[in-house]
């Protein structure tokens, strides 16, 4: 039995029924329709107060029908996959095309195979959720062993498997098994009357081979380091200053400052600050930025996106030029180009939108140490919690959990709990040095554009001449 056949069986539909449903969806004159079937299981295990005393399993099941007419979208979903319920959903979605006289026939079925970017070595289903309890307990013990000020540890291990069956009116039929494993920990430390908290996480599209001793060591050390430093840290004096963004998680800058503004739905509607910039020079020739759905095991990887388009590597910025927006089928059609495979959705309850995958900057030639030593007064940041952007105005922010002051080219006093705000095009143009140490941060990054989607981000260390740093005034 092929994977597509297994999926058809799981959702209790035949290829003939898929064609009938798509035909119903297009019955009012829509130009394109797709069916997205999803079955997801999520297992979670929680440690609190030293004991693995919380567990959960969650099943979600259903299918969504989408109809596109021009750039208009009709969408409906159902949690019951009988032909009757699915036909009702198809009819509800079809209404968007009322008045459109065109009638597009459904093309013959073409089963599609895509390259697998997340092969599973050890299935989660081969072990019981509670058999993972010793792993999470070992993480707790490791954290307590690292620093006597550790007071509380909250750890959570989540693994999920999502089965997808996709069919569209172009005849594309494909299926996918999407794993996700996430380990996250929050550490509370107390020193006298002072309390601080820090966290760390790792997330990959992997099977249970995810659970290794290295992972425990890595997360435990990172969480403790991130918390311990806060006892020596303070809130700096705020204002405009140079900012060195450390490698890895600083990719949040790309996600917020330019990534969202490059999503083609915003540009198609002429509301992004980059709407008129395609093909133009927007930053230093040293900068190239990629959005990549093909990084093996990465949280943002997709074998195919949620519109049946292959996962791919998209150069958004090449040598300083804006070379591509991030497209779903609707925006690709508007711009008369191919989709970049960025049509993603949270679940069958949502229609797909252009969304990022793994967004990162390619290495430059500078050394991080040289970049830091070139700064007379500024800050170095490499630990973040969240970010946001205003697409039209271009103002983006990200919250810095910890970092350091830079004084006369040296890292000095630790800093914490400050927001940084800048303007996307200005900040991008203000990047004056790019280091050679790029890597992708594999934390549990989740993008919240209308719906939640797993992503990741990465960066080499860069120097931005000027951003507005939160802080206290003297």
């Amino acid at each position, binding site marked *: 039995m092929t994977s597509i056949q297994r999926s058809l069986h799981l959702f209790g539909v035949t290829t003939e029924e898929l064609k009938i449903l798509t035909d119903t969806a297009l019955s009012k004159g829509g130009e394109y329709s797709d069916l997205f079937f999803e079955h997801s299981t999520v297992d979670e295990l929680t440690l609190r107060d030293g004991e693995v005393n919380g567990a959960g399993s969650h*099943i979600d099941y259903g299918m969504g029908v989408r109809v596109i007419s021009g750039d208009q979208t009709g969408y409906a979903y159902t949690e019951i996959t009988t032909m009757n319920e699915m036909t009702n959903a198809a009819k509800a979605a079809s209404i968007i095309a009322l008045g459109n006289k065109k009638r597009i026939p459904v093309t013959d079925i073409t089963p599609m195979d895509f390259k697998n970017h997340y092969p599973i070595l050890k299935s989660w289903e081969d072990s019981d959720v509670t058999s993972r309890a010793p792993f999470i307990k070992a993480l707790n013990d490791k954290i307590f062993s690292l620093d006597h000020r550790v007071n509380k540890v909250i750890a959570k291990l989540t693994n999920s498997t999502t089965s997808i069956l996709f069919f569209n009116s172009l005849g594309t039929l494909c299926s996918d098994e999407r794993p996700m494993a996430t380990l996250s920990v929050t550490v509370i430390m107390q020193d006298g009357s002072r*309390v601080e908290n820090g966290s760390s996480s790792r997330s990959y599209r992997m099977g249970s081979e995810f659970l290794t001793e290295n992972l425990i060591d890595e997360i435990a050390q990172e969480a403790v380091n991130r918390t311990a430093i806060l006892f020596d840290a303070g809130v700096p004096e705020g204002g405009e200053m140079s900012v060195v963004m450390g490698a890895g998680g600083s990719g949040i800058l790309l996600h917020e400052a330019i990534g969202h503004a490059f999503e083609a739905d915003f540009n198609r509607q002429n509301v992004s*600050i980059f709407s008129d910039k395609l093909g133009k020079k927007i930053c230093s020739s040293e900068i190239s930025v990629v959005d990549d759905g093909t990084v093996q095991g990465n949280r943002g990887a997709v074998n195919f996106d949620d519109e049946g388009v292959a996962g791919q590597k998209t150069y958004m910025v090449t040598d300083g030029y804006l070379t591509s927006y991030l497209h779903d089928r609707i925006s690709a059609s508007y711009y008369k180009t191919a989709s970049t495979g960025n049509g993603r959705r949270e679940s069958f309850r949502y229609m797909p939108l252009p969304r990022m995958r793994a967004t990162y900057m390619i290495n430059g030639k500078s050394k991080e140490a040289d970049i830091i030593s070139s700064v007379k007064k500024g800050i170095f940041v490499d630990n973040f919690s969240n970010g946001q952007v205003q697409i*039209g105005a271009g103002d*983006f922010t990200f919250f810095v959990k910890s970092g350091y002051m830079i004084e006369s080219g040296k890292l000095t006093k630790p800093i914490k*709990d400050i927001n940084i705000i800048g303007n996307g095009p200005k900040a991008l143009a203000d990047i004056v040095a790019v280091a050679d140490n790029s890597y992708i941060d594999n934390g549990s990054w989740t993008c919240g554009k209308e719906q939640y989607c797993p992503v990741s981000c990465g960066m080499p260390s860069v120097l931005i001449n000027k951003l*507005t740093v939160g*802080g206290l005034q003297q």
Partner: protein
Amino acid sequence: MKQENESETIHFALKAAEKHGAGAVRITYNKTKHSSYTFRNDKLDRLQQATGSSLFLQLYVNGRYGTFSTNRMERTELERFIAKSIETTKLLTEDKHRSLPDTSLCYKGGGTDLKQCDPEFSEIPSEKKIEIARMCNAEILGKDKRLLNVNSEYGDYEDHTLIVDSQGFSGTTNQTNYTVSTECSVKGKGDSRPEGWWYESSLFFNDLKTGGCGEKALERAINKLGTRKIKSGKYNMVVENTISSRLVSPIINALNGANIQQNNSFLNGKLGERVFSPLMEIYDEAHLPGEFGSRLFDSEGIATKPGPIIDQGVISTYFMNSYYSKKTGIPVTVESPSLPVCSISGQRGVSNENKLEHILRNTGKGIFVTGFNGGNTNSSTGDFSFGIEGFYFEDGSILYPVSEMNVTGNIISLWNSVRDIGNDARKASRWLIPTLSFNSVDFNGF
């Protein structure tokens, strides 16, 4: 919106849980129905319709506890899922603090009708919904050359929840909600395209204010033209009632029982102490009919009651569910506030003219914040830093828009510098937090 076999499904799940070894169980059945229609400029851009249901199980097995959910209600599959869930729960470490709540604290029925559900929900034709969204756009299309794009959305949902537990608690809630919103972009200086938005929301269709969203959104976008960053320094701060809840939510989070027990709250150990300005009052109006958030019981079935949260700056309560109550020894309250109302101490419900214009005038000069852009609060210390946009004002008059700035401080210090609390909370919100004014706050610009 009752599913015909809803009580049968819950009864079946209860029996199955008991049969497979659960000592106690709580089942929450939820069903929702929603629709939304979005107009982009002069045509319908998106329509969405759906219904959904789910079963959430909390299982107490041999002193162990697990949470499980599914939307697959077919009997054989459901029983298999429950049996497996119980087996999973049995393998956890025992947690003696986990149990269903003391029945004497649970809601017993007979409460007043809180007017949360519109019986006409299913009667509203889709044509009317589409027309509401279209009219919002029509208010401004062609009215200003700078307008680049406008999206208006009409959305509604109906939510039906039934909670049943094995010690006899049963409670139902039904709620409807209607929202209309507009978001538009205008051509600014250079490549900038400032956005403006507005929304209205109600529990009953007939209470939904359907006109004015478009005009208000355009006005807010145009007001942002010519924005600038100003010098870092200490400024008085007025916060608009559309976003002022952002300065209350860190306090509510810090009062949460889980954060107290986990020593991750800047209000830990402060119960009964005066922490904030005596000017400040937050009261939980849990039973106000026709208001978002009003409810008779929480998700454990514990009866809610109106009462003070912050009274003259003193912490009056933590939010303790039965689990964290047992772990901390602090009596059970409710798991979270229902309808927090912020006011000047002793002025709650008093009618006066203490609205935005009055507060701006009394504050003199400073920054009027109309939007927070990102940022966060350290839950252990209360230190916060948020991006902002808004306006610089003097003598109560708005002079020019400001953006690309941060506001930074500590929640306790901030609320000790509160100078005024308005009387103009938006009824469209679940938390009734009015316009706020603070003295000498740290703003970061150039």
